[in-house]
């Protein structure tokens, strides 16, 4: 049984709650109050920002030598554990084919993305150690990766409303990946709901890459692309009813 707190009582323990150090019955009472009081929720959110800000004051510290390599090894082990069956079959073209086959059978964009992380992670594991172990290069580049600004589908608006990247896939021969961060609010598009992502090819055809959810014009998303990215000239985002939200055109510069 928890007691019903008043707003005033909530504010007695709110700072502890926001910092994550409230426990037991006090915590239960406070969270029960927040469930029914929007004003106090807002108050706690502000205090939580203060807590985040406090952590932001901590000085950065150089990790011990070799840290990157050890992180890489850890990611590699985690990926191997998750994709154990893939690893067991060994490296080679057969693996690439089977991975692509699996991807094509997955309908849900979310599932495809999750799988992309898993299978991609395996590739990370194998290759990342070489990169991390190599000499640090000041300006690293990813060859053949495309980048474009997203432009909101609003008349007269030319400001970038996000960025989109098309990655050719790693290792070479594996499916590419398109990923993006979208911020359409500044263009006046505060759309919330399902978004359809279409790849436009230079021959005029389009391919549906997948769907994702946007809130208030804000989203970030990525999905494997089974099409040859060298034929992709742009990307179009539309709402569920087909109306345009944003477009991007890849062009070298």
């Amino acid at each position, binding site marked *: 049984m928890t007691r019903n707190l008043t707003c005033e009582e909530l504010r007695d323990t709110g700072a502890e709650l926001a910092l994550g150090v409230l426990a037991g019955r006090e915590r239960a009472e406070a969270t029960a109050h927040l469930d029914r009081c929007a004003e106090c929720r807002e108050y706690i959110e502000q205090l939580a920002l203060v807590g985040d800000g406090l952590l932001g004051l901590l000085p950065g510290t150089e990790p011990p030598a070799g840290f990157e390599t050890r992180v890489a090894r850890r990611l590699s082990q985690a990926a191997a554990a998750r994709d154990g069956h893939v690893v067991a079959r060994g490296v080679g073209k057969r693996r690439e084919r089977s991975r692509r086959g699996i991807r094509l059978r997955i309908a849900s964009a979310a599932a495809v993305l999750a799988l992309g992380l898993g299978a991609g992670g395996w590739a990370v594991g194998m290759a990342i150690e070489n990169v991390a172990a190599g000499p640090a290069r000041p300006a690293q580049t990813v060859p053949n990766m495309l*980048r474009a600004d997203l432009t909101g589908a609003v008349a007269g608006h030319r400001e970038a409303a996000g960025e989109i990247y098309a990655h050719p896939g790693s290792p070479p021969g594996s499916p590419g990946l398109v990923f993006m961060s979208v911020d359409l609010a500044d263009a006046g598009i505060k759309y919330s709901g399902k978004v359809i992502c279409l790849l436009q090819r230079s021959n005029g055809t389009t391919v549906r890459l997948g769907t994702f959810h946007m809130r208030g014009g804000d989203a970030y998303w990525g999905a494997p692309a089974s099409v040859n990215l060298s034929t992709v000239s742009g990307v179009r985002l539309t709402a569920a009813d087909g109306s345009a939200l944003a477009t991007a055109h890849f062009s070298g510069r």
Partner: protein
Amino acid sequence: MVFRNRQAIPWPGRTVYKGMQRLQLPVGRIPDEALLAGLATGDPELAVTFVRRFQHTVFGVAIAVTRDAQLAEDIAQQTFERAWRHAQVYDARRGSVTTWLTTIAHNLAIDAVRSRRPEPVAPEDLDALLDVVTETPEQRALADEASAALRAAVAALPREQGRALAMAGIYGMTAQQIADWENIPLGTAKTRIRTAMGKLRATLAAPGPTRTGPARPDHAPDHEPPDHPPPDPAAPTPDPPRPDPTSPKRGGHD
């Protein structure tokens, strides 16, 4: 829905497309969020770029809380592993990628310390930490205005409030643990946390930038309000439950 353009715009069958040029994209220019999404590509260059970009911050939090290089490294590694596994649950509206990683590292560090040591902090470390956190912004290349204001506000706190704030906010100590450590009544510990947080919140909420230097006149008393007995005499459990470190721990309502 503020979405104005309800008309479907016809998809142009042909575009003024001048041919595909391949880019050698400098990965240093990829925004944080896109870099996080890009971890899914499996590109080792992107993954290492991600680690390089954030390792200072992540390790800084881990070492501040644990004060143990070995443990801090393990926590920093776990942080990157979680980020890599849970990149999909990152929600840009809740804060930057840096804040997200900081929260993950902080939660992991506090859990690790709680499970290893009866005493979370040593007083000399606490004072040293406060000195570092409140050192003047000139010494920090990347101090933005909001964090400069916050830093000044922390510096302006009476020392005992600053200590209580650091113990709760950085070391994750409960009010009871702070009371035991400082040898003060529980109500006093709670009051110190609440008062300190209230002042900092006022700083962040203040319109316009708060300049560094002397803090704005503040009705905060130099001595603390009189103690009142806590409403619930039941002592908090020593280890409050912490939510999943991959989700923002604080005020989580979604």
